[in-house]
């Protein structure tokens, strides 16, 4: 299992300090951002900061953007500059039949590139126009159409805290990446996602139980910490705590989660009131 921190970027000059020295998932917000991005100079900056890109997240890209070969062009650009094998995309509006037809046109090129297109899971009650959102549905459909390059990125906080452990136990063969964070289970689904993508221990999702389940199913893919930007200062600490956990040194992470969920946390009324950990004084 490899632990990554996720960083969204919109320009090649964006601040990288939160993930300096870490292996990361590089994420691009918008298709236009990606098109206008100076990938060459950005790769040099990443190298200077000791950052290794292990996966790319292109949430706005999907196979339906086939005009001018945009989708396959995006995949080729990612492979050329970042050399990653797993690219996570969000399912966009469309139908399974249409997606299948479009993939048929580019399947050979995708196989040549040797990349996995991993579709991210979403809430069942979310946008029903997305062509595929559920773990079971993805496993069954990708198996049925026999596209081995179509896989799953399981977003822990897009899942239901009541069913996620059962779900991952049953369907996991196509999971290549996990988007991991914490969430508040009693909050309504909101588009700004401020109730989720919280640091581990800032919510009440069954984080430790989920991690144990990953070990039990012998998961060997990527585990990616995906936090809201206001919590990026915790990415370094949590990445290493999580990496230590998977190496068998589980207590420091457990302790940190228990500490964050200690007295006072439950009384917080809204995620905006969550206090970030104190920052160390400037050196």
């Amino acid at each position, binding site marked *: 299992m490899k632990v990554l921190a996720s960083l969204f970027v919109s320009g090649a000059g964006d601040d990288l300090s939160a993930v300096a020295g870490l292996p990361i998932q590089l994420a691009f917000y918008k298709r236009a951002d990606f098109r206008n991005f100076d990938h060459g100079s950005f790769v040099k900056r990443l190298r200077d900061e000791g950052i*290794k890109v292990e996966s790319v997240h292109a949430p706005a890209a999907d196979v339906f953007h086939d005009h001018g070969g945009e989708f396959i062009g995006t995949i080729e650009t990612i492979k050329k500059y970042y050399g990653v094998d797993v690219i996570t995309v969000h399912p966009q509006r469309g139908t399974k039949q249409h997606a299948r037809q479009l993939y048929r046109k580019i399947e050979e090129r995708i196989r040549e590139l040797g990349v996995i297109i991993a579709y991210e899971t979403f809430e069942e009650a979310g946008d029903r126009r997305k062509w595929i959102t559920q773990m079971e549905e993805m496993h069954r459909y990708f198996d049925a159409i026999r596209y081995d390059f179509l896989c799953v990125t399981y977003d822990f906080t897009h899942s239901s805290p009541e069913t996620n452990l059962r779900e991952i136990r049953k369907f996991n063969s196509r999971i290549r990446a996990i988007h991991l964070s914490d969430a508040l289970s009693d909050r309504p689904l909101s588009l700004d996602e401020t109730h989720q993508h919280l640091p581990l221990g800032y919510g009440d999702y069954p984080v430790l139980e989920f991690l144990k389940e990953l070990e039990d199913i012998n998961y060997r893919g990527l585990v990616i910490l995906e936090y809201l930007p206001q919590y990026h200062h915790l990415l*370094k*600490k949590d990445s*290493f705590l999580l*990496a*230590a956990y998977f*190496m068998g040194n589980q*207590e420091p992470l457990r302790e*940190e989660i228990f500490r964050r969920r200690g007295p006072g946390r439950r009384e917080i009324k809204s995620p905006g009131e969550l206090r970030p950990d104190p920052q*160390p004084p400037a050196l």
Partner: protein
Amino acid sequence: MTDLDKIARNCRACVSDTTRLHSAKLDTSTALEILGYFSGRYRRGLVLYGGQLATPLFWGFKQMRKLTNDFDFVVSEPILVEMIGSEGLSYNPEYHIFFTYLDGIICCFTSGSIHGWDIPEDFFTMAAEFKIQGREISVCSREYTVALKFRRAVAGGGDLFGKDAIDIINIVSAPAFRKDLPPLDFGRTASIVLAHAGSGAVSLYSSLFEHLNHVPAPSQDTAMRELTRLFLLLRERAS
């Protein structure tokens, strides 16, 4: 307890309210010259402590941060009195330290206590000998070096300075990478940390992980393992 104000008065040390932190970069050869100078003249009763120890020259395994540009020594009271005369040490009553400049680098001296912390007897008996430029110098033990860094954080309100976290990682991990260093006694380190920093050190511990990116990537797994070993002992003994 050593009264540094009184020593300064009795020895008529020059009193300076502010210490000028020298901006000159300290390189290894200058560091060796300074250490060689003091160890040659005052070997007995002088112990080097502080950030200089978290380097490959002493207890560290990598130069993980910019070399700190000062030297901190604990000296016996008679040596301190001697040095005030022979080295022209000045006194800073705000920080309760004596200091001088050598090759433009500030060298600080204290006796009996370090920033209000009474130095215990075993601080001296546990000090280790290193050979620098053919001269032996006493340096603070790894156990006390780590404990002092935790203590500063706990006493200062609960945040580990980034540089202290990096130094702890460096020192705790070093024996796994350097065959010339004896293994660190994790149990004894945990006991000394708890005795002098208190159980607050346990809750500070996870912030060490925030700075593991300063460890070269191939060494990070080992560093995590060593940190966790110490953490488990700290937690066990604190409870």
